[in-house]
């Protein structure tokens, strides 16, 4: 399998801030590769290095077989990039935006229409509308169409689903999956852990370092302890109470419940007595499967 991105030992500093520390990874042709991490983890910086917008201080970045420093001119013809802020011209209409990006990349909308038709058909009824007047979901679809219009070999999407409603997010992922048939490699970042499951492979990134790279399922399975889910009517009190219980290793809020791990991977009745003493008498604790987020938090703690 061909490598689309090969990064080795990438480091980048902005003044005193170390944005990326010795990052190495590879992305295979045709896969959807996700970078999962909180804000400020270094995702955008990394993407800018991949797209030749920034040069790394150290390390080498090879994209589509070209060095991102020396081969940037050739490379720029073959990358589709969607920055974190949808870079659309707000005062141009949907159609004009798309036409503009098509001409700039030396192609026409008709030439690659089949590639974007799935996505673009959603917004085509509004093609005379100014991009600034579109909803978040529609902006995102237009930005994706613009980034795809020249049939790039590599598509780089920086937080494409941030600020987009749940339905649009789900539709967006369906579209990305469909792009696989055109053999377009996709690199994207997201702060949403649930989206990680839809990637072929993910890299967990935190503080400019990659914590782990693997298939999402494998990352989940990497969780080293047995995970339990605790629920009570008073969630905040429950967390506090669980953290004071001597057998508890970690206790994190997770949705409407609390994820807990114990030293011996099991619990007995003494915990309910402890909770009752703390004023919580309706707690239910069951074993549960770890999610990527749990694994992420575990890795973060180790790092």
């Amino acid at each position, binding site marked *: 399998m061909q490598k689309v991105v090969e990064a080795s030992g990438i480091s980048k500093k902005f003044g005193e801030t170390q944005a990326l520390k010795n990052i190495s990874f590879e992305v295979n042709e045709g896969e959807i590769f996700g970078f999962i991490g909180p804000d400020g983890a270094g995702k955008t910086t990394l993407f*800018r290095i991949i*797209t*030749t*917008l*920034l*040069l790394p201080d150290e390390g080498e970045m090879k994209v589509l077989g070209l060095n991102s420093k020396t081969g*940037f*001119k050739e490379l*720029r*013809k073959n*990358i589709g*990039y969607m*920055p*974190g*802020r949808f*870079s*659309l*011209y*707000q*005062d*141009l209409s949907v159609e*004009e935006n798309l*036409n*503009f*990006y098509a*001409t*700039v*990349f*030396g192609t026409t909308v008709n030439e690659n229409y089949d590639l974007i038709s799935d996505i673009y058909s959603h917004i085509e009824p509004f093609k005379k509308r100014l991009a600034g007047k579109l909803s978040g979901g529609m902006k995102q679809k237009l930005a994706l169409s*613009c*980034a795809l219009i020249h049939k790039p070999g590599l598509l780089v999407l920086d937080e494409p689903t941030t600020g987009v409603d749940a339905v649009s997010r789900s539709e967006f992922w369906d579209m990305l999956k469909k792009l696989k048939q055109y053999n377009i490699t996709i690199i994207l970042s997201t702060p949403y852990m649930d989206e990680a499951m839809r990637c072929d492979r993910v890299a967990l990134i935190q503080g400019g370092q990659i914590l782990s790279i693997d298939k999402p399922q494998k990352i989940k399975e990497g969780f080293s302890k047995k995970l339990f889910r605790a629920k009570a009517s008073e969630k905040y009190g429950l967390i506090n109470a669980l953290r004071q219980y001597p057998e508890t290793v970690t206790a994190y809020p997770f949705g409407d419940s609390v994820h807990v791990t114990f030293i011996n991977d099991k619990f007995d009745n003494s915990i309910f007595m402890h909770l009752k003493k703390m004023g919580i008498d309706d707690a239910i604790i069951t074993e549960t499967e770890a999610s990527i987020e749990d694994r992420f938090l575990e890795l973060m703690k180790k790092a």
Partner: protein
Amino acid sequence: MKRFLGFVKKEFLHIFRDFRTLIILFGIPTAQILIFGFVVSTDIKDAGVAFLDLSKDEISQKLSDKICSSGFFKRTEDLFNYNDINKILKRGKIKAVIIFEKNFGRNLISENKATLSIIADGSEPNTATLITNYITAIVADFNRELVNTSGAGAMLVQPEVRMFYNPGLKSHFMFVPGVITLILILICALMTSVTITREKEFGTMEVLLVSPLRPVQIILGKVMPYFLLSFINVILILLLSWFVFGLPVKGSLVLLLAESMLYILMSLSLGILISTVSSTMQQAIFISMIGMMLPTILLSGFIFPIENMPKIYDWVSSILPPRYFVVIIKNIMIKGTGFLYVWKETLILMVFTAVFIGLSVRNFKIRLE
């Protein structure tokens, strides 16, 4: 090429979509010219003139009758000696005094020439210029009649114009050249720097950089529409000043337009340079307004004559390109001089342009930092 044209088309769309840009582009120049047009009234009707006829002969009488019967002037007073001139001008009712020299008629017949002096109140420079121009024209007309009727060799009345209070009439009839100078640098520098920094601010620059567009194409694509529109602006201002005040271009129109193009190019490259050093629109506006507009108004000689400034401001103004364009445009429009009189300034503007372009190309980043 197709890429480039696509880019230019997009720029035009930006300009025509944005109401404010259009206002700045065409509204402000029009408004400025019209405001000046109404403030500076060009109509002369029954302006009071006094006569000091030291000759009192047939010809001087005939000429003064001709001046007063034109409808532009009204004989308000007759003076008898030079001392009265200052007194009567100070009263302000009289706009000009016309003096016939001693033996006016006899000189004209015996020596074929006689002198007529016009003393105008220079504290109202525009009126003064107009009055002297009108009188001079009437005298020229009179000369023609003389030649026709006498048939003899050319007999000439030579009008001698003198301004009281503001002898050079400096800086005042300058508003059209001044407005052109100001408007062009404002539009070109401000608009190009803002449109480039806008791309930076909205993040679209990131995508443009990742595209195969070359920096030269991005810069030229940004500059081209403004170059065209600014050129249209020059023509618009010239037409307006012609129709509103009848201010003609005395020198070569082609030369004037060519020099304007050079100045536009210079201002545009300055705008690009500003955009390469500023990362936000606000910064670009600040640099263009404070850095360009105020010095242009105050120091370019547009309003305040450079000759009257302290030396240090003179030096400061010598690094301001508008200063040279004011000289060029003044020479061509008002004095009607040719290229020989403005080649030095033209050369300086060219050097400015080359330096700005050079610096911009060097500063333009093909990456984000």
